[in-house]
């Protein structure tokens, strides 16, 4: 059998799909490095024992009802250490998961939802395109939670942002300040935060963001947001005389 010299045009005819997951152009060591980071998370050992593909998790999974998403495939790919598939999932699957943990019914004790949480963290830490795209509409909310300590604030309910929630949601925006003052609970008269968070509490929150490196995570996904937050946090901590 003579060896062919020139590499003929067209992919190797023996493979159904030469690049099954579609990320053949990404270097293997990148995929391996990302998967190693997923496995390095302290929780990974508790989330994955092995999968015998019974499909019980998918039966309970909301995302699987509409997306071509499957917690079983997440657990299987991780259990088989299929680095290519894990990388594809980190780019295409993980942001479809509803993180509702219905899949904790796994008779093997796996936690596919937890594996997705870890994969998302690694995707954010490494600035994967999927993470950037997933968070592009989300930066406003990250700013709110990291800078004010409450995530969803009354002033977010603007009709242009939530027309699909009906005109009554628009009324909230029209009467926001007045309706908030009509709330009997003392802490809830705010409009830019869910409730009045004490100053001291916010400073403690900033210390947590800095000490745990949570703030740095934002850097790789939304540099603009990161610089705003970093400036705000560091300024505030200096005023409090806290060095890290």
């Amino acid at each position, binding site marked *: 059998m003579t060896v062919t010299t020139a590499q003929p045009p067209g992919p190797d005819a023996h493979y159904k799909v030469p690049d099954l997951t579609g990320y053949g152009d990404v270097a293997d060591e990148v995929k391996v490095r990302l998967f190693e980071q997923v496995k390095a998370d302290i929780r990974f050992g508790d989330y994955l024992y092995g999968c015998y*593909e*019974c499909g*019980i998790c*998918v039966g309970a*999974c909301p995302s699987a009802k509409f997306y071509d998403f*499957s917690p079983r495939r997440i657990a299987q790919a991780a259990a088989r250490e299929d680095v290519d598939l894990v990388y594809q999932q980190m780019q295409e699957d993980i942001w479809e998961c509803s993180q509702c943990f219905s899949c904790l019914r796994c008779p093997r004790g796996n936690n596919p939802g937890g594996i997705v949480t870890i994969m998302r963290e690694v995707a954010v830490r490494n600035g994967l395109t999927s993470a950037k795209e997933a968070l592009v509409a989300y930066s406003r909310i990250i700013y709110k939670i990291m800078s004010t300590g409450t995530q969803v604030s009354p002033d977010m309910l603007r009709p242009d942002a939530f027309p699909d929630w009906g005109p009554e949601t628009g009324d909230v925006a029209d009467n926001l300040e007045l309706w908030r003052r009509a709330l009997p609970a003392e802490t809830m008269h705010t409009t830019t935060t869910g409730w009045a968070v004490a100053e001291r509490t916010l400073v403690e929150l900033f210390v947590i963001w800095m000490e745990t490196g949570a703030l740095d995570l934002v850097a790789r996904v939304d540099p603009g947001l990161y610089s705003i937050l970093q400036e705000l946090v560091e300024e505030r901590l200096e005023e409090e005389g806290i060095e890290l």
Partner: protein
Amino acid sequence: MFSDTVVVIGGGPGGLRAAHGIAGTGNRAVLIEQRDYLGGTPVAEKYSGLTPRGEPAAPQIQHLVDSVTADPLTEVRLGTEVVALDGEPGAFTVTLRRAQGSGAEAVGDQTVECGAVVIATGFGHFDPSRATQMYGYFEFPDVITQAELELMLSEHRVLRPSNGQPPERICFVQCVGSRDRQIGNEYCSKVCCGVASKEAIEIRQLLPSSKVFIFYIDMRTYGYWENEIYWPAQEQHHVQYVKGLITEVLPKGDRLLVRGEDTTMGRPMEVLMDLVVLSVGMEPSTGTRDLAKLLGVRQNKYGFIEATGAPLDPVSTNREGVFACGAALGPADLEDTVSSAAGAALKAVGYLRPRPVATAKA
């Protein structure tokens, strides 16, 4: 004086075969059974057909029972349970007592001398209320176990407990209470795939217009169960096998909606059923559990009696002279049960008379 008697505890197929084997060697067997009848679970739960060929269970078990009761070398004590075992291998004293709730009138403790003991106390079914998944066994009358279906099959009428009508769509859910880390039963109970397929055939024969499904991870119909049960069920009786377990059972109108994933198609599935049969696995029976503690016999992680010499010596326990067989050791089908029973019988007989010196090897 050497004893010529072996005490066999448990009157099911295992105990019966052990007693029959012991008598066959010319020694005496005292068979202790807490119920008021012999035959064990197959009789208690009124098995209809036996795997793999599905012939009626009752006559076959009766034949085994008669072979023991008719043998002069066997002595059967019904409504009796063991309360103590003293002495040492070759010279044991077994203390017996009337089982509570048995018909026979209460009488004081009795003792039996014997050279060895064979435990054949069998298994109990997994209690579906502890299932990992939401099968609603206690909520919905039309969710039953294989044993409850077997009872109906032995009376040749399969009806929906909710309305007494014959069901049109019936499904089996495999691995309920087995292969499950959350519940702690991490083992496979061996028989449920074969029994489910056999029951499916019996339903199809009884209700020709019925549609029967089996939701499974992998069909474990070992040996001849494959060609004698699985293939005929699928090919001649048109039982529908779907690869993917059911996650939850919920009411929809007067029927039940079973939900899971068709793992081959990679899509969630939701199918309406009239009757849901849970293939519940095996667990150590309370008899096995209590007796193990009583006789100081070590149990494995799952509560079954540990076979210290497994796999080549599957019947010896950590206590010399005390042997175990059948489902007391772990999940077992009838073939496993009677063959390990014969093995236990032979080992037990070894403790009745010393072997002539000449033949003993160095």
